[in-house]
């Protein structure tokens, strides 16, 4: 330990060299320069580039707000509501041919009407689409032709599709709801001597909306608007079929969640 102290003392007696002055100046100048400059950003935006980021951010925000507002304002579309039915795959070509051939021949047994579902019966259809109107009009014209052609013969049986539509159109709002709901109208046996009628039927079966039309044409036309549907519910109430009326009202609210039922009608429901 004493030896170490002696060596340390001797060492300190050695010449105390110092760094040269120019070296001090160079190092201190470098330190000052470094202290003055801040760390540079990763990307230095210059000129027009400096606006890119703010502009892009503003555009994204405006777009997001616009899309949100649009989605909020958008009402449920009629076409969208019917999409599952319309989007159902069309019959296979072979099946279609068979169907057409069967209808061209003498139909021994008409195809039974498809069982109706309430959903189809009360499909939200505040305004029938124009294409649907045209189709219905075409069917009606065909039916009129058919009726003309069959006048001498026995009273023509109504077609499963167009007949139902016609009667529904004629009775819309007039028939009591219960009658309309019990839609499975008996489809009379088709007569063989009616080529035009067969054509109409084939066309109807090929039409994309043939299934819902055949199944729930009556309801779809009878309650083409929420007001008519409410009228139907009112009819049920009037007939003391409260359970069914409640079900229909629940279904109505599901289908038209944004529809405000007039208080007068609600009061009428409650009274009954």
């Amino acid at each position, binding site marked *: 330990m004493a*030896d170490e102290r002696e060596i340390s003392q001797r060492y300190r007696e*050695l010449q105390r060299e110092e760094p040269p002055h120019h070296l001090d100046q160079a*190092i201190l100048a470098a330190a000052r320069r470094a202290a003055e400059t801040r760390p540079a950003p990763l990307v230095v935006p210059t000129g027009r580039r400096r606006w890119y980021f703010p502009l892009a951010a503003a555009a994204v925000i405006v777009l997001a707000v616009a899309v949100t507002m649009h989605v909020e304002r958008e009402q449920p579309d009629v076409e969208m509501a019917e999409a599952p039915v319309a989007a159902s795959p069309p019959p296979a070509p072979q099946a279609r041919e068979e169907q057409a051939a069967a209808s061209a021949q003498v139909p021994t047994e008409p195809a039974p009407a498809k069982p109706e579902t309430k959903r189809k019966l009360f499909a939200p259809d505040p305004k029938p689409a124009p294409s649907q109107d045209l189709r219905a009009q075409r069917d009606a014209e065909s039916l009129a032709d058919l009726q003309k052609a069959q006048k001498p013969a026995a009273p023509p049986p109504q077609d499963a599709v167009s007949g139902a539509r016609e009667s529904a159109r004629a009775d819309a709002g007039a028939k009591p709801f219960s009658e309309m709901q019990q839609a499975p109208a008996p489809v009379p046996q088709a007569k063989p001597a009616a080529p035009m009628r067969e054509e109409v039927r084939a066309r109807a079966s090929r039409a994309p909306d043939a299934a819902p039309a055949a199944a729930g044409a009556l309801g779809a036309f009878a309650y083409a608007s929420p007001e008519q549907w409410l009228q139907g519910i009112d009819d049920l109430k009037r007939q003391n079929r409260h359970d069914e009326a409640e079900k229909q009202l629940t279904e109505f609210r599901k289908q038209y969640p944004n529809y405000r039922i007039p208080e007068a009608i609600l009061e009428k429901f409650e009274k009954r």
Partner: protein
Amino acid sequence: MEAPDEELMLAYGRGDAGAFETLYKRHRGPVYRFVLRALKNRSTAEELFQEVWIRVIEARSRYAPQARFTTWLYTIAHNLLVDHWRKKGLSLVQLDDEPTVAAPDNPARQAEARQSLARLLQALEALPAAQREAFLLHEEAGLSVAEIAAATGTNEEAAKSRLRYAMAKLKAAVDDG
């Protein structure tokens, strides 16, 4: 009371150039002598000395006082010395185990050697690099054995052993006179 080195370095990291100046004035002599006596070549020592401080300047923003500033500073110096020795084809083991060849005697040095201090200096130059470094860190930087071990990246036993050998050799050189 003087501000601690660590605070000065942190202040410099925040842009206070005056803090660096204080720090530099405090350590410039010891660091310079440490490098000069470790290398025995003035121009190379000056280059390396400057490099040490440039490294300090560059590290200003990421400096975190995990140990004494002095230990950190001499760790930088040690690493630069090791790089220098590597470039010359020397390894740390060689520097530790094999005594370096003593500087060739010349008339002037022999004349100086007559004096005790000159003999001490000559003995210091003749020490293996690792032992000399341990001695210089102890004398110039005032580092403890543990700090020497930390600065040179070795364990305490090795640092203690190097320092003890260096002291013994220097004592022998002084006593020979």
